Each structure stands twice: as structure tokens, then as C-alpha cells.
């Protein structure tokens, strides 16, 4: 068994991964709703873009607070005296550095880009609402499409980041990025649906349309989770049986099976299929949010444990 250090990622990071995924998911859904009929899907576009901005605002704060030296947060992007040998394929542009094989560096860039575009998208909705007749649809298309790519990146990169560590549970999984992206989409869609139903704006079939996203995305979430576990189990990597046991039958199994799988995935999925009652669909949306957080939390918690 390789002797590893504790990773020491606190709850702040789980919360960041959850919010970043939700923001990215909500933004992508709003963009697609805008592209395929902005007027008809106006409520989804509005809520989606506002939500993406609101969810991304705390993100940099969570990350900066977690740093050992918070005042150096800009070092993620800038170094004024870059050493020539700081990693494969590193691109230095002036004082900025881009490290394609450091998902944390790429993620910091993506967070910066996404935040700016989420602000512009939300601003375009706000300005249109503030003055009737103003049409910023063309601007929103550009911002939405570029921001959509950033949104996908923001939702998925934490999984890729975990995969690029030496923890047995993470580095043998391959599907963590795919899983985190699916969770981002499911939580993003669920949050939009929940807000619309709380505002009483589910008219015009919007909730039905969101259901049509939520159902396949939950299936994708289940499939990528299963593939992740299978991949870890069959990798034969050192320490994987023990790490997997922690998650599936050890101290984290209750949160995993009951929280992330039963309550957070199966129950809301069944509710989406069998009912059209707004109250139950709202409960389903809440459970999707809870499950989306727990599945990320429990995998990160189990993967951090030092085996000996």
C-alpha cells in the first residue's frame, strides 16, 4: 500500500464543487433554452442566467478562504518571475501562465472567464426586463454560447482535478469528470425548476420541458456513477479495494447508499417519472440538489482517507 498524505480538503471545497457545477449546469440549460426559442422559454433563460451568476459569486470566496496564504490567490494565474521549468506544455503570456495539465490552473482560468460571462448574460436579461422593447438577444447568443463552454468546463473540471491526484479512489476512476458534469446539469436543472415553481411561473410547459432534461440527466448521473465505481473496481490499482470498501461498505456507505443513491438519485428520479404534481416535483428537485451535493461530498471524503 503506498503511504500517502492526507489531502485536507475541507467542506468549503465540496461546497465550491457543488456551486460551480450548479452554476455551469444552469448556464448551459439557459443558453440552450435561449437558442431554441428565447421568448417561449423566457422564464427558464431568466432564472437560469440569474442563478448561474448568484451561484458563482461565492465560488472565488470559498476558494480564496481555503488557501494557506489567501492574499496570494492571484498566483493561480500570475507569476511575475515564472521559472522556465514549471510543467509540461506550460504557456507563459506576459506574467500569466496556463498549465494545460494542471486542472486547478485551468479551472481558475475557467472560473474567471465564466464569472465574467455569467455577469454579462445576467446583465442582458436585467436590461431587457428593465426597459421593454430593448432587445439584447444577439449579445446573449454570443455570451451564452461562449459561456456555455466555460460552464461545461466549470462543472466537469473538479472531477478531472481529482482524477489527476495519487489517491487510489480518484486516479483509477476515469469517469469523475463525466459524473461531476452530469451532477452539475441535474442540480442546475433542478434548481431552475424549483425556483420557477416557487415563483409560480411554471406555466407554458416550462416545468414539463425541465422534466425532460432532468430525467435523462439523472440517468446519465447514475450511469457515470456506476461506470466510475466499476472502473475503480476493475482497475487493479494499488489500494483500490480498500478505498472502494470505505465508500461502499465502510464508514461512508450510509451517506453513499442512502444519501447519494437512494434519496438523492432514485427517489427524485421515480418522482419525476410518476408524478406531475407541482409539490412532489418541488420535493424531487430539492432531493436532486441534496443528492448532487452528497455524491460529490462522499466520494471526496472517502478518497481522502489515509490507508495504512
Amino acid at each position, binding site marked *: 500500500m*503506498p503511504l500517502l498524505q492526507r489531502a485536507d480538503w475541507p467542506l468549503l471545497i465540496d461546497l465550491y464543487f457543488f456551486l460551480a457545477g450548479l452554476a455551469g449546469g444552469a448556464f448551459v440549460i439557459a443558453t440552450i433554452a435561449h437558442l431554441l426559442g428565447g421568448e417561449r422559454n423566457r422564464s427558464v433563460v431568466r432564472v437560469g442566467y440569474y442563478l448561474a451568476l448568484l451561484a458563482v459569486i461565492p465560488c472565488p470566496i470559498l476558494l480564496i478562504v481555503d488557501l494557506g496564504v489567501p492574499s*496570494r490567490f492571484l498566483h493561480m494565474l500570475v*507569476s511575475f518571475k515564472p521559472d522556465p521549468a514549471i510543467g509540461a506544455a506550460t504557456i507563459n503570456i506576459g506574467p500569466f501562465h496556463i498549465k494545460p495539465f*494542471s486542472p486547478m490552473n485551468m479551472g481558475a482560468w475557467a472560473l474567471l472567464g465564466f464569472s465574467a460571462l455569467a455577469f454579462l448574460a445576467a446583465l442582458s436579461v436585467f436590461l431587457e426586463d428593465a426597459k421593454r422593447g430593448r432587445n439584447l438577444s444577439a449579445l446573449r447568443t454570443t455570451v451564452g454560447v461562449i459561456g456555455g463552454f466555460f460552464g461545461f468546463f466549470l462543472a466537469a473540471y473538479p472531477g*478531472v482535478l481529482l482524477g489527476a491526484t495519487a489517491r487510489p479512489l480518484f*486516479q483509477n476512476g*476515469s469517469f469523475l469528470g463525466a459524473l461531476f458534469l452530469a451532477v452539475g446539469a441535474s442540480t442546475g436543472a433542478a434548481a431552475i425548476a424549483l425556483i420557477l415553481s416557487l415563483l409560480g411561473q411554471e406555466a407554458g410547459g416550462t416545468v414539463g420541458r425541465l422534466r425532460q432534461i432532468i430525467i435523462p440527466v439523472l440517468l446519465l448521473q447514475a450511469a457515470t456513477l456506476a461506470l466510475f465505481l466499476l472502473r475503480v473496481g476493475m482497475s487493479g490499482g494499488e489500494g483500490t479495494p480498500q478505498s472502494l470498501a470505505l465508500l461502499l461498505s465502510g464508514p461512508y456507505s450510509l451517506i453513499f447508499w442512502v444519501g447519494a443513491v437512494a434519496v438523492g438519485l432514485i427517489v427524485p428520479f421515480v418522482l419525476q417519472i410518476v408524478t406531475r404534481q407541482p409539490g412532489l416535483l418541488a420535493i424531487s428537485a430539492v432531493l436532486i440538489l441534496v443528492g448532487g451535493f452528497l455524491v460529490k461530498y462522499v466520494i471526496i471524503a472517502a478518497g481522502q482517507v489515509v490507508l495504512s
Partner: protein
Amino acid sequence: MARTVAMFTDVSLCIGCRACQVACKQWNQLEAEEPEWTGTYQNHAHFTDKSYRLVRFFEEKDDKGGLQWNLMSDVCKHCAQAGCLEACPTGAIYRTQYGTVNINQDICNGCRYCVSACPFGVVAFNHDTGRASKCTFCNDRLHNGLGPACAKACPTESIQFGFRDELAAKARKRAEELKKMGYKNAQLYGEDQNGPLGGLNAFFLLLDKPSVYGLPEKPRLPQNNVLVDSLLSIGSALLVGIGAMVAFRERGGKE
């Protein structure tokens, strides 16, 4: 670039005196720490932010039912392909002109990604300074033509310092000698530059398989996963995109 230097740790010569650990602490002015009961003479259980050298004590049953005491002075491997260096988002971790891997404390912002990216559990987080720390290969000594303090202090020459090519040749010869002497499992770890992680600049001569010494049998560069994991994420993104487009498509007259 100067000629690559290396440390060669021959565990067959280690007597577990921990002079290396002490010399490292002294030279690098690392604070004393509360001792930790690990069940053996080993202190601490893992590398810490104040212990860059760590003599590990492993007790194993041997073939005759007796006890085999394996000692090994462990250290940062200064990998040719280093997980910590590739992971570092700030560029604080860099490769020196001697081929060693170092953390620039003036740049590190304490994100701790390198801690989980090291396949050997070497990099540790210093809660006092809020930065990551590990063996520097005595970078200051190196720049003054001296070898690392641990190698200097080792009384049995279990730890040797030199140019990598010369040291590797020496290590190969020593492994052959040990095999002739009847140590069937004697093997080099990290000496091969075509091996895992492109070879380690602190390599070892072990008397048994690596896992006996708490080393990974086949260490991998974590960043090798980035491409496949990203492609699978893109696949997932395509499915989400298609799902959303189907849901929001124009349905003529249906509403």
C-alpha cells in the same frame, strides 16, 4: 542545464540511526515536533512539513518464520516526471538546473493540490506558513558545490550523493553484488530512466519488493489521466447538450 544530480539510498546499509533525519532538521532549520508513537522506532508516521527525511522501520516475517527488520531512509524522489510539479497551479514548484524538484516558498499559495498529487506522500502542508513543503535536495548546499546534508551525515554511506549517471552505474553494480550474496529480492527502485515517472533522482536499492517498504509498485504520473478523463467529460457534456436540445426543441402547435 547542469548535469543531473541524484541521491542513492542503499537500504542494505541502513542501520536506522537517523543521523540523516537529524542532519536534515539541523541544516534546514526545521523545528522540533512532538514525537508520535507508531509502534516502532519510526518517528513520524509520515513525512511532515518539518521532517523531510524519514527513516522507516518495517517488520516482516521472513521465510524461516523469523522476523526481518527492514529499514529505509525515505525522502522526496525528485521524480523526472513529478506529479507535484505538474499539479501546481501557481508555478511555485519548478525543476532546478540540477534536475531536482523544488517549491518556491515565495510563490506557493497553499492550495495543497501537490499534497494529493504526489504518488509517494512526500509533500506536506505547513499550517504555520500556510505553504507546502518538502525536501529541497539541500538546494542551498547544491549551489555551493556540496551534497545534501543527509548524505553527508550518513555514517554507513547508505545515502550517497553524486551525478545521476555515475551513481546509477554504482547502484546497478551493488544490486548485482547483493544478489550474488544471496539477497534474491534485492532490486533497484527508480534508477531506470525509462521506468515509471521517467526515473527518480532519489533512487533506492531495496532488499524486497517495493510494497514491503510502503512504496507503490508501479507509481504513475497522475496527470496522465487528464486527457482520458477530459474526453469522457466531453462525452458527458455532449449527452447533456443533446438532452437539453431535445427538451427545448420547437414542437409545432403542441402547446
